[in-house]
């Protein structure tokens, strides 16, 4: 799994590639925490290069969403979510908790 952060004017974009499971979820979570630690609460997670995500990854997303939405200071949105992962997010009830965008730049524009 590879994760990179790109800074925009009003938000940060976390670009995650590869597979997020119990082995790599800590690294994924850490990268999201680092964004929040810098006082950025509007985050786009670009999933176009994501091949796989288990509940370990979902939990990291949820923890981040809770932090970002606290005090209404921001939110996490998901962009370019692959079909299989979108189906799993839906099964887990997560599609109600996150806005999904087709295009990452569209997501950036929405925040």
């Amino acid at each position, binding site marked *: 799994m590879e994760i990179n952060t790109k800074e925009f004017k009003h938000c940060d974009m976390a670009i995650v590639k590869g597979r997020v*499971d*119990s082995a790599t979820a800590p690294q994924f979570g850490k990268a999201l925490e680092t964004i929040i630690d810098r006082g950025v609460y509007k985050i786009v997670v670009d999933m176009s290069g994501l091949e796989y995500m*288990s509940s370990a990854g979902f939990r990291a997303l949820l923890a981040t*969403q*809770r932090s970002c939405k606290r005090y209404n200071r921001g939110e996490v949105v998901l962009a370019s979510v692959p079909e299989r992962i979108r*189906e799993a997010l839906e099964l*887990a*009830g997560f599609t109600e908790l996150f806005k999904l965008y087709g295009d990452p730049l569209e997501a950036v524009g929405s925040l």
Partner: protein
Amino acid sequence: MTLTFPTTFKILDDIRSFVGDQARQAGFNAKDIYSIQLATDEAASNVIEHAYGENPGEQFDVSCEFQNDRLVIILMDHGKTFEPSQVEEPNLNADLLERKIGGLGIYLMHKLMDEVRYESTPAGNRLTLIKRKG
């Protein structure tokens, strides 16, 4: 076919490849293959985390076989007995602040597979996951 794995998360890649290959050979479609891999990953993660408390020095077995019209995956571990009925199901209707994070893996397993069975046997804990084809 049965493979033995150490109780560390980095083997999850290999477990997913193992069951994924078997599922592919058995002719499951892409969506089902992903479901099978995800369910097995969730099961194995729970074994590693809960049965052994993430102690990396232990081992557990994963067997995967296509029988008649179904793929049967069995995880055997010799760790702490697990009582799945004690795990609260996540409240999917709760809002963000209330929603419990725990139990998600087990919940997904049940949704993704056709049958999930836990048995505590003298030989160890046995978790069976079954996915019917088509």
